[in-house]
């Protein structure tokens, strides 16, 4: 692995005063990796991503993006610094066509050239290219996830955060989705993903973290973590079932 793209140290965050969801999370994502964060419901997985993008203000600890602190910045500034985020739901502009969704994605870094980035995205997601004039609200669930990823990738982020990309998808689309994530990673994008579908996600990840009660519980290489019975029994109930 080369440089560390994203580092958090003892990150503390929560939505209301005195109630912290994250009680000191430390993770590292190196360039080119897929890192998956798993854990039981309420472990703070989604909150971690929201703290990274700036939707939840961190109360303690630090966040470094490519070595620079981003903790406390508003989301628009964090996106400009090179962090892309795909929310779990409502992650496309439904009233706008696909191409306009992608245009909006490029707003933080217009200097990259709209045409070039659109072509790159249509190459990565051919289905979007076929339907570039179609209104996003009329897309299927899987297509929406692709569009959401493509939108986040438009400004060439240093790292892409995915919040449960397979949530709500029909089983036959889940495989397709993971393939897409892998393809995006192969194209050179570092990925930090939160997933309910833990076994599948860890299996395709370079490394994984298990969170519990807002703290690091376990970490290791992705496939190894997925096979670790201790992890499975304690935190990923029904993993093999």
């Amino acid at each position, binding site marked *: 692995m080369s440089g560390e793209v994203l580092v958090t140290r003892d990150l503390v965050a929560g939505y209301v005063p005195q109630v912290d969801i994250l009680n000191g999370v430390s993770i590292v994502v190196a360039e080119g990796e897929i890192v998956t964060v798993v854990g039981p419901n309420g472990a703070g997985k989604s909150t971690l991503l929201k703290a990274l*993008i700036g*939707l939840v203000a961190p109360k303690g600890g630090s966040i470094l993006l490519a070595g620079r602190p981003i903790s406390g910045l*508003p*989301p*628009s500034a964090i*996106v*400009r610094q090179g962090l892309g*985020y795909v*929310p779990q*739901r*409502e*992650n*496309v*502009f*439904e*009233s*706008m066509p696909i191409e*306009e969704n992608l*245009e*909006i*994605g490029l*707003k*933080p870094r*217009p200097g990259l050239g709209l045409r070039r980035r659109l072509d790159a995205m249509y190459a990565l997601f051919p289905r979007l290219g076929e339907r570039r004039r179609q*209104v996003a*609200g*009329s*897309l*299927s*669930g899987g*297509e*929406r996830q692709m569009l959401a990823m493509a*939108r*986040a990738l438009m*400004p060439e982020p240093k790292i892409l955060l995915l919040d449960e990309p397979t949530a*709500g*998808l*029909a089983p036959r689309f889940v495989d397709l989705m993971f393939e897409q994530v892998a393809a995006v990673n192969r194209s050179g994008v570092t990925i930090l993903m939160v997933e309910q579908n833990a076994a599948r996600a860890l299996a395709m990840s370079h490394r994984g973290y298990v969170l519990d009660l807002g703290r690091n519980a376990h970490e290791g290489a992705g496939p190894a973590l997925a096979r670790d019975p201790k992890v499975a029994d304690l935190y990923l109930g029904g993993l093999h079932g």
Partner: protein
Amino acid sequence: MAGSNEAGKADALQPHGAGTLRLSRPVLLLLVIVVLFAALVALYGFDATAQATVNGLVAGGYLGLGAIGLSLILGILKLVNFAHGDLLVAGAYFTILFGWLGLPLVVAMLFAMIATAALAVLTEKVVWQPLRQAGAGTLQLFLSAIGLALVLRFGIQFFAGSQVRTLGADIVSSITIGPIHLGTLQAVALVTGLVVMAVVGLALRFTGIGKEMRAFADNRALAEVSGINTRRIIDVTWAASGFLAALAGILYAVAIGSFNPNFGVTLLLSLFAATVLGGIGNAYGALIGGLVIGLSQEWSTLLLNARWKPAVGFALLILMLLLMPQGIFGKARRRS
């Protein structure tokens, strides 16, 4: 736009076919208008009908132009801005102020529009932004808007008095086209309304900031995490709304001839009607909504005594909303 997110959640898995109904509504409306026009010509003759139509377009033009800014705030910021009528008034009175300072009328108007845009941004900074940060709910925002409207109105009264004012334009000169008479300034107001509608509509459609505004209106949270500077979008929306309100207020004041600080509040209900009828957040919708109200009111004077004119406009509003709840240009709500 408000309902789209829910619908999206409910059927995230299915593809949708929402486009067809949306396209047909304006066309349907146009057909109804043409048929009604023909019927009125048959009943009352061409001259009377054409004159009533022109009058309706003029009256509707004021409303439509005034409603565009209101629609932007409602559509993009989801705020029911009861103070919008008073921004129209502010435009007219800023014109008086700058005229009094010695500027020529047209320059004074331009300055007044800029000043009103600044005033609108100021309300955002002083009232709306703090309220949003404090987590104010719909009712709080609603009441604050009414309060702000009163503050603006009485502020204007405090400085300018409540007596009747004019901008000193020639309101009796008219254009005659065949049997139709039309006030020169009314024609100017109508043409300006159409041009501004086109400019705002095209700007929303094609410019960068327009696209960002639409994205913001569609999904504010997503716009934020997409890297859009939402603070800037909010400010630009207020400035545009204030600028358009002032333009509408000035044109209304100029064309109707005389006014006092209460003209905004008397127009406000009609402005909301035009906004809702046209489809919230849609510039074309606001103007078309205004024109539909104006036409229906003026056409009604052919059939009924003019005293029923205001009632006709609002009866029509209710009827049309029963038929097309999203308004003429609004997004069709998907079934889930």
